[in-house]
Every structure is written in C-alpha cells, then in structure tokens.
C-alpha cells in the first residue's frame, strides 16, 4: 500500500510534528522542569515555629559605624572570608564585612571618576579570582579585587541590564532592562552572544530580589510574579522549577499584555503571585502573595516535601520578633549552605524584651538575649545564617 519513500515521508512528518508541539521558544514551560512544586492553599500548616525547619543558626552582628551604616540589604554574596552587601538606593554602595561582621571597607564610592559609581544596582563576586563586579547605571561593570583595589571597567555593547552574574568560563549572564529579551548572555567583553525569554515589562525585570544567581554549574533566573525559575546552562535554557498553584496560577498572558507594571494587590485577589525565591543545594524558599497575605513555602529537594504557612502566623522562637515584623530571607550562603535571614535590630530588641516579660526561657532565648544586650536600636541589621532541618 505504501512505498518506502512515502513511509519515510510520513515518519519524518510525525517526528517533525511531535518535536514542534513539545517545544515552543516563546513558551518554554512546556518542557519538563527539574522540580514541580504543587502548592494548594488548603495545605497551610498552622502553629509553625521557626525551630520546626531551622536546625542550626548563627547570628552575625554587622558592625555599625559612620561608614558602614546600611539602609537596606538589596543583594548579598558570601565568599569564604567575606560577606558583601549591596545597598542600592539609601547608602548606595557595596559594603564588605568579614564573616564575623567586622566592617572591612566600602568597595568603590559614589562619583563619576575611575572606580566610582553613580547608581550601583547589582553586583556579583568571583571567589577563585577574588574579584567583585559592580553594575553601575545599567550598562557599566566596575571590577575590584577583594582588597578594595579598583581594576577596570567594562561597558555593555548594545543592551541595558538590571542584574548580573558571572560564569566560571568568564561569560556573563544578565537580566535585561528593557531590551528585546529578559536574559542576555555575553562574552567577557560584554558582547552579546545569545538571549532568551521575551522581555515583558519592568515589573518582571527590575528590582526583583534574587533575580539571577549561580547554583552549581547553572545560572538560575526568574521573572517577578511568575511561577517558573529557569536554569541557563552553557548550551540551553530550561525550566528548573515550576511552582504549580493550580487554578490560582497567574496566567502568563496577564503579565504579557500589561504594558505598565501590573498592580500586585489587584492580581493577588485572584492569583498567587511569586515574590521571593531563594535556593540552596538541598532547599528552596518561596514567598508568594494571595489576597494581600504573604505565604512561605520551605521545600526539601531531597525528600521532595515542603511546609506551607502564612508569614503572619509563624511563631518566632529564635529571633522572638513580633509577627508583623518577621525576619525574612535576603540571600543565601553557598559556602555553608545556609539561608541568610535579615533581623532588624530595633524589632529584635523589642521582641526579646517582650519575650522576657512573658518569662521566655531556653537555649534560643538565652542566645537571643545575649545578642540583644550588645545592640542599639539604630544599629545595622543582624544576619541569621540558618541551616535547615530535614523536614
């Protein structure tokens, strides 16, 4: 009935159709992710305490002085010896502390001369090269060594960027700032090599906490509001995690059609809106909003199990903060595999005082009280390096 040529024709036709159906460059969520985390608001756990998922923790009190005063922690990176903190708008700069929180220096300074920046909006470090790279004004990268010495500056060619990350093979990965695509890969001299994921709007690009970071061999990137985290490897981009909120998942079109930044409050009435995401080798931390309430998912990648709870319901039995001032994650320490929580000193001191009045006791309280005694209400925040338990 069929001759050999026609069989081959139909074989290739079927193969072509199946490949084209399973892969769409504009909607890459169709590929199977490394993790799909199913989240249902019916599974919210009550009476959760920090100690239910934090196994060990250390406080690092960031030294406070005229030069080391930080407004906000917008990005944080840790090397074996140092903690680097970017404050984008308030104190404007990268602050270098040692691992015990002693202030070392401010890397570079505000200005328009060599080694100076006007608008530092992102940074990264390279441990092996002992270098710090600060993105200034969306198009210029200033390079310093770990001793604070200025080395050089490189300008991007033909694209603007909001966030940066450097791969081991000297290639750069960027989160785009209004150019054609969201993720831009470039060579060491910032010549664009390739780009991925269509640019949607500024809301999904700028000012996203932890928008791009290196984990193992991969660079992980995400867009605010949306439920997919992508992994950029040397050769491809693939979905790494999908947070599946089922009928509460925000349709991609809701973001794509908005020319202006969509209102989170309005969107969160109907959908779960992803805002915070951090990842370690074994754990994932997700913060999302629904109906103006914040929820957290702590996920164990080894057991493929998670805990979902309301941000305002958690009992803080480690830093003793009042519920409305909960501490929250601002970054990860890949050296020790710990999540880094920011604890505001003013709230911490008040929380410990309040716990003392309620006759709190135990090892955690003694540790917190000891630290609170050393703090003043207008000191820099305290960092809590938390190792998660095997929940």
């Amino acid at each position, binding site marked *: 009935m069929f001759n050999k040529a026609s069989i081959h024709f139909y074989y290739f036709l079927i193969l072509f159709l199946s490949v084209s159906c399973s892969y769409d460059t504009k909607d890459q969520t169709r590929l199977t992710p490394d993790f799909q985390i199913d989240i249902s608001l019916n599974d919210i756990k009550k009476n959760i305490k920090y100690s239910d998922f934090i196994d060990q923790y250390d406080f690092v009190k960031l030294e406070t002085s005229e030069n080391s005063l930080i407004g906000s922690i917008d990005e944080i990176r840790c090397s074996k010896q140092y903690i680097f903190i970017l404050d984008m708008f*308030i104190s404007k700069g990268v602050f270098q502390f040692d691992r015990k929180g002693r202030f070392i220096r401010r890397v570079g300074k505000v200005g328009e001369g060599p080694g100076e920046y006007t608008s530092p909006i992102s940074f990264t470090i390279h441990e092996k090269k002992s270098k710090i790279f600060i993105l200034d004004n969306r198009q210029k990268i200033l390079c310093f060594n770990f001793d604070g010495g200025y080395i050089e500056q490189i300008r991007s060619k033909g694209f603007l960027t909001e966030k940066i990350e450097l791969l081991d093979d000297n290639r750069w990965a960027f989160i785009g700032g209004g150019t054609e695509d969201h993720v831009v890969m470039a060579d060491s001299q910032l010549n664009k090599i390739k780009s991925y994921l269509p640019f949607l709007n500024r809301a999904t690009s700028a000012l996203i906490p932890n928008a791009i970071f290196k984990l193992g061999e991969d660079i992980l990137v995400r867009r605010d509001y949306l439920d997919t985290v992508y992994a950029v490897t040397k050769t491809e981009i693939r979905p790494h995690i999908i947070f599946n909120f089922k009928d509460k998942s925000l349709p991609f079109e809701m973001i794509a059609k908005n020319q*202006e930044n969509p209102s989170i409050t309005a969107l969160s009435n109907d959908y779960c809106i992803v805002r915070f995401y951090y990842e370690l080798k074994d754990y994932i931390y997700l913060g999302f909003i629904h109906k103006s309430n914040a929820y957290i998912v702590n996920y164990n990648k080894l057991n493929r199990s998670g805990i979902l709870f309301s941000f305002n319901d958690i009992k803080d039995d480690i830093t003793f903060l009042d519920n409305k001032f909960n501490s929250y994650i601002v970054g990860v320490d890949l050296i020790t595999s710990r999540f880094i929580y920011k604890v505001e000193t003013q709230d911490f001191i008040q929380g410990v005082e309040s716990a003392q009045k309620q006759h709190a006791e135990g090892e955690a309280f003694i540790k917190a009280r000891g630290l609170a005694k050393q703090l003043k209400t207008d000191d820099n925040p305290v960092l809590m390096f938390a190792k998660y338990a095997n929940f």
Partner: protein
Amino acid sequence: MKNIITIFFTIILLLIGIFSILQSEQYKSEYRKKDKELILYRENASSSLSYISYLDSLKLVSEGFFLDKNTKVKSINGNTLELSKILEEKKMILYYSSLHFCDCFQSDFLLLKNFLDSTNCNKILVLTEFNHERELKLFRKENASFCEIYQIEQIKIPMIKTQIPFLFLMDKSLRVSYVFSLSRGNSPNLLTYLKSIQQLLNVKPS
C-alpha cells in the same frame, strides 16, 4: 367580541414581554460594558491612582485643610510633643518617609538645602515616618542641613498615597496649605514654589 378582547390582551401581553426582554438585554449589555470598564480600571489601577492623587493635590492646594489638633510627634531624643506646640510661627514642612529613599529627588533636595541656607534653617521642619530608627539616622547623615526633624505616625494627608515626598505650609492651628510634591524633573516648579513661600514666610534672602 370576546375573542377580539382576548386577542387584543394577548397581543398587549406579548408586546410587554418582548419589551421587557429587550430592556433586560439592554441592561445586560450595559452591565457587561461597565464590567469591562471595571476590569480596565483594575488593570490600570496604578496609573489611575496617580491621577486621583493629582486631583487630591489640586483640591488640597486650592482649599487647604486641618490636621487633628492633638497630632503628636516624637523628637530625635525620643520625647513626645504636640505638633501645635512646636509651630509657634508658620513654617514650611517637608514630609519624608522610608518609601522616599531614592535618587530621583536629589536635585530637588539640593534646591531645598539652598533655600535653608537663605532662611538660616529656622523656617523648615521635617516630619518623617520611618519604620526603623536606623533609617532616621541615615536620613540625618545625608541631610544634615535640616535641623528640626520629628517623627510622626500615620499623618492623615491624602498625598501620602503618591509615595512622593512633599512640602506644605503649616501654622499653629495645624492648617495644611500650599502642598507641593517633589518629583524628578520638577526643579523649575520647585524654585517658583520656594520663591512664593519665601514671600509668604517673610524670609529675606541672606
């Protein structure tokens, strides 16, 4: 005759029925239109908010209004004071909160500081609303020209929702007037505003 009356009423009833159906369809279509408008409004909520704020600001500038007589503020030393007590004479007020830390207002702040130099620093008072004391410390570090700084909790001024620092005049009666929002690229307007304030406050250039 009976048949004619029955047919007549049947036709009338049918006409009323058709009319009601048509009217209900019209209502439905109007409702759908309103619903679409509502969705559009929600989608453009952020831009609408700025428009509402603009209208609010116009109303405030033209009419002025009073703050609660018992409004309290906290000094840098932590003392709680009545706002009316620290306004023996009419002053210009800068309202600034933790939402306002941004490069956008740098040129406006420079103009303000120049204004302070010409007023010997006694005609402007800063009301701040910060979440943490560290933020106040940072504000003072960056803006040493402002000597009178107080903290206030939940000041009831509609301009707050614009998330932009603003200036206004206030006297002992806590009447808010001459509201002006700082913003990027608004420096020429700020200059005009400050000149008129200079006259209103009887400030002689030094």
